[in-house]
């Protein structure tokens, strides 16, 4: 990469030297599959969830009533406020434990920081944001590891607990199950608009609120109905995660565009070309699995592939449970919508309908 004379002079903002922040920094599924192809597949009687099926976290059974959930997640800064960055990165890491149906117990921080480029107070603020988010989840931040680096990275390794009977995997969806999603779509595009200085104050506060909202209460509310499968919407985008869930459950899926909720202005930003690189990566990885039954405006399909940071949860529930689930969510103050369904068909295939 050549240096460009038109490049702005570094004014000490956290995101200035970051190529892709948040889940936009994720290696694409297409590339990841190649990297992981040579790795041995771990098999053990107690390993209930490993790297098969692109699960959110590993689950290891300790005894018949108890299993540990293990996950790690980190990324470069996606906002300039160090405290907020710490909160969001921690929230995103904790989310994997909720996506498996568990409760986070302890966490350790992963931290890389260029101590020559920024004052140490910035580092302290990142860690404070992370620690506060862990405390909000009712878990304990018990230490971590830090290194000098040219690029800032922060995240958590999280250990959670779960009764093996309560594990929610990708693979339990059944034919005719409804797909229910919490949170709005478009964090990747919105964060790029933020970096471009185009996000209004009101849009910023909506986005930051979503990025720092834990999925704990959504999971708790969901427990009031029989959940067949669950995952969180993160780096692979909505289509990628529905695809993984459908494939693992050996089902096809249908998605209804008119049922989706997007962040305000996200469509307009995508239309103007504020689409993160990894959205194109996701498109390349997953588009072969998608049939658009009608032409979609390009900006809408971009948002289907938009990498989500600290995204919502996706649930598969029986048709007659979906209204109960939405009600349980709304009683807990959480907006959730039915965005599609699983059907018999080509495993992992998604039909995208307009309404």
């Amino acid at each position, binding site marked *: 990469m050549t240096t*460009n004379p038109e490049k702005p002079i570094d004014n000490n903002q956290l995101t200035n030297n970051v190529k*892709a922040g948040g889940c936009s920094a994720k290696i694409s599924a297409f590339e990841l599959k190649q990297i992981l192809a040579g790795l041995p597949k771990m098999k053990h009687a107690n390993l209930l969830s490993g790297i098969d099926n692109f699960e959110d976290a590993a689950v290891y059974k300790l005894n018949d009533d108890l299993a540990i959930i293990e996950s790690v997640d980190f990324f470069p800064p996606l906002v300039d406020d160090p405290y907020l960055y710490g909160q969001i990165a921690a929230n995103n890491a904790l989310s994997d434990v909720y996506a498996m149906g568990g409760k986070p117990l302890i966490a350790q921080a992963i931290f890389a920081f260029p101590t020559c480029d920024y004052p140490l107070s910035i580092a302290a603020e990142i860690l404070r944001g992370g620690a506060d988010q862990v405390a909000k989840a009712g878990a304990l931040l018990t230490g971590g590891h830090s290194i000098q680096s040219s690029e800032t990275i922060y995240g958590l390794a999280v250990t959670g607990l779960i009764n093996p009977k309560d594990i929610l995997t990708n693979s339990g969806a059944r034919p005719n199950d409804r797909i229910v999603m919490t949170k709005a779509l478009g964090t990747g595009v919105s964060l790029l608009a933020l970096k471009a200085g185009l996000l209004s104050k009101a849009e910023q506060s909506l986005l930051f609120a979503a990025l720092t909202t834990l999925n704990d209460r959504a999971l708790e509310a969901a427990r009031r109905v029989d959940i067949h499968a669950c995952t969180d919407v993160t780096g692979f985008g909505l289509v990628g995660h529905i695809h993984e869930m459908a494939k693992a459950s050996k089902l096809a899926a249908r998605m209804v565009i008119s049922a989706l909720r997007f962040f305000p202005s996200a469509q307009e930003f995508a239309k103007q*070309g*504020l689409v993160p690189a990894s959205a*194109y990566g996701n498109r390349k990885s997953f588009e072969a699995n998608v049939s658009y039954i009608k*032409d979609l405006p*390009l900006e809408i399909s971009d948002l289907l592939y938009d990498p989500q940071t600290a995204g919502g949860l996706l649930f598969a529930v029986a048709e007659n449970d979906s209204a109960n689930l939405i009600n349980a969510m709304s009683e807990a103050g959480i907006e959730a919508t039915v965005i599609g369904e699983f059907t018999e068909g080509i495993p992992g295939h998604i039909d995208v309908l307009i309404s």
Partner: protein
Amino acid sequence: MKKSLDLRGLTCPEPVLRTKKLIDDQSLSCIEVLVDSEVNVQNLTRLGNSQKLTVQCKAEDEHFRVVLQRSTTNSEEQVSAEHHHDATTTRAKVSSTIAAGGNIISSTATGTIILISRNTFGEAHGSEKSKEDHDFSANLLNLFLQTLLQSGHEPRAILMVNSGVKLMDPDGPYIKVLNELKEKGIEVLACGLCLDYYGLKSKVPVEQVTNMFAICEYLFSADRIISP
């Protein structure tokens, strides 16, 4: 007036922001931008289209040259007229011209569906019909598909139901032209129930097998249905 920008080495959103600044200057009729990643090309194409500019891209050595042009007439209509022969409605078209490996590709998806519900063109092959008559009608259907392929029309999908699914027979006379149509990006799909009835299901690739729900959705969301 024309202006050039060298935005190599910059990552999103910088190239979009800097190009947008030039687009806002109405005195410029042509903006030429150098970028070094395909993502930037795609994003500049989106930007150009949203501002109703024509966008062209060329891959050169290690970078891409993106040319955004303000045309004096309505550029969107021109694009539609050139590339969308099937355009019949006013709904927004994905008229983007995107670069892939230096080639210029136009997205030409439209809402025309071709529904083939028997294995002949027109007249059904009732019991009173002779075999010669049936063969003639079947050949006509083949001729229709060949002509469609050569015409440059690009319907959204070709759907086959009832005895129409016999066209998918890998040993039959239609499969070659159907595959060529599929290669052009047209979805070629056959009803699973019908394939099963005619004993063809195991001979057709799974991604080309569809169901009545999807067929119904395709038909109801189509701008136009042609049933030969």
